[in-house]
């Protein structure tokens, strides 16, 4: 069995956004991430899918170290990423990198591409020839060396994202978080970026945590997929299995909402589930299962008790398929 490179266990991240009560002492919290667990295996692409407000970016930012978890742990190759209040050692920072959604705002407009790519090299790889390294990084993402002298605003959206990828590769990482890397780009550019990412993964044996809201894209890049809704994971399965046998009503709603372009794809979609309602505010999470307000298969128990993760029978080992829904309460 392959080992996990990243293990997330019962991760919780709450944000205090204000205070209520007469003395303004009772904190109002947003439960952005509310007890999620998953593992990313060495060399795989683990897809994290969810709508806006589901907490998927918070997972990314906590992993990279921008936030400290409220509860729970994240460990990388068996080593905890949050060791007391100590700063994360450079050796681990080097291993985990991130590519953000909007390359327009994640690259400093006042620095040349060379300066942008040099910074991580300065921090992490002091002894090497920097110029050579910058050229090599640009080569890796298929950009010509003279791009070094350019500034971000001189590049197109796709090219900017390639620079952002090159920057993530600069430290020679083994794990990269991709936070919606193509959702700001046109589909023809997206295709190029995705294929580049897949090639880099094979070449450098990278593991990806791929965050997106695009399920069709996920089908083509991820080996396993987890669906998030309001800070919790509701279903995890292998990508192909996922699209063949979706269990959770939310997953089915998502799948049936995807606009597709061919008949074959149409057949893969579950029977049309009319999408109703909207994702509630994470400040006022509904009691019981957080999806029950929009759920077409709601039971009485759903509004009272939050379901637990159960395993779908017959799917064990690497192909484990788990779902968090009362409909399948007996399956485990």
């Amino acid at each position, binding site marked *: 069995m392959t080992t996990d490179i990243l293990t997330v266990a019962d991760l919780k991240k709450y944000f205090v956004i204000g205070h209520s009560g007469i003395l303004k002492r009772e904190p109002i919290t947003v439960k952005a991430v509310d007890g999620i667990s998953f593992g990313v295996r060495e060399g795989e692409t683990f897809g994290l899918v969810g709508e*806006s407000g589901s907490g998927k970016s918070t997972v990314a930012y906590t992993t990279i170290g921008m936030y400290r978890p409220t509860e729970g742990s994240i460990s990388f190759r068996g080593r905890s990423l949050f060791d007391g209040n100590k700063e994360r050692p450079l050796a681990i920072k080097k291993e985990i990198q991130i590519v953000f959604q909007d390359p327009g705002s994640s690259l400093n407009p006042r620095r040349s591409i060379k300066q942008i790519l040099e910074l991580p090299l300065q921090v992490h790889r002091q002894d090497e020839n920097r110029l050579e390294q910058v050229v090599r990084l640009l080569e890796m993402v298929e950009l010509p060396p003279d791009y070094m002298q350019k500034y971000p605003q001189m590049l197109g959206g796709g090219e900017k994202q390639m620079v952002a990828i090159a920057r993530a590769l600069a430290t020679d990482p083994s794990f990269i978080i991709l936070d919606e890397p193509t959702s700001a780009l046109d589909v023809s*550019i997206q295709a190029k970026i995705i294929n580049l990412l897949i090639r880099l993964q094979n070449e450098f044996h990278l593991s990806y945590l791929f965050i997106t809201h695009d399920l069709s894209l996920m*089908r083509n890049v991820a080996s396993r997929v987890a669906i998030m809704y309001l800070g919790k994971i509701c279903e995890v399965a292998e990508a192909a299995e996922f699209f063949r046998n979706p269990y959770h009503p939310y997953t089915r709603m*998502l799948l049936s909402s995807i*606009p597709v372009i061919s008949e074959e794809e149409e057949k893969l979609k579950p029977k049309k589930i009319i999408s109703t309602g909207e994702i509630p505010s994470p400040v006022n999470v509904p009691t019981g299962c957080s999806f029950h307000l929009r759920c077409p298969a709601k039971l009485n128990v759903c509004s009272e008790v939050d379901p637990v993760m159960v395993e779908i029978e017959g799917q064990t080992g690497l192909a484990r398929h788990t779902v968090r829904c009362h409909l399948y309460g007996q399956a485990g």
Partner: protein
Amino acid sequence: MRFEMGTSPLLEIKDLHVHFDVYGGTLRVLDGVNFTVHSGQKVGLVGETGCGKTTTMKSILRILPMPPARIPRGEIYFKGQDVLKMGEGELRQVRSEGISMIFQDPTAALNPVFTIGQQLGAVVKYSMEGKKLSKKEIRERAIIPLKEVALPDPERMLDSYPIQLSGGMRQRVCIAMALVASRELLIADEPGTSLDVTIEDQILRLLHRLVEEKNVSVILITHTLGVVRETTDRVYVMYAGNMVEMAATEELFAQPLHPYTRGLMDAVPRLTGGGIADGIPGRIPDYLNPPPGCRFHPRCPRAMEICRQEKPSFYGKRSGVSDNHEVACFLYRDSE
């Protein structure tokens, strides 16, 4: 849907050119756009960012800022009358009764400092030109479209500010505004793009229902091919200020002809899996110095010598007034 020969189209754009005068030269954005919508049709307009979709639509309503924009050539007929030659009065008539538009970003389309009721009320007043309505009457009329777009608690909605609503609800308000007066043509500019997929699905279904109920024609602008396939009956594909292909929706998806359309379709990730093709190399040209000939030739895998020199006209099969599958590409020159 088939149309009789001789029926005049609801909207017809002929050889539209739009230029923008900017520091450093002229951006030649639209380069001879032809576009037709018949009454009752649902037409999709697809293309990537910066290809001129929104510019085309804004010229129909004459809401392009002029200057810098300029229309050196072209005609836009709405019900047989050239919008570009209309006076202010006629134009107001078109805007208040003929055509309305829904924009991509509902947050930017609504004024943050006025309540929904005030904004909707203004539209009601505007559409009732000449007639005086009391505040109460305006309120009563404003509530009708809010009910039509299935917003919960419309009474309270009238007194809410845009910031108190979610993105999906704001877009519903925008649709309600567009439907205050009975219109003939609705232009929806990426109405679901800024929303989540389940909400986008809701908005598109809502639009579909209203369009059927009110018998409105629609132009749906989007860069998502799947949305077009599921909601329109005719598609135009646009690239760098030119229409490159037009066909009945089913036909286009079954048999795309233009190399650009094909590249676009190949790049779409499929639910069936199996990876994604490599997309289209290069990027959209600079409008200051657009390439001569076919504007797609620098990115085209099948470019020929003639593509670099001449602009292709439309070729293809013509089976009826609105069933034509036409493509602006020299590869199909001989298939006439």
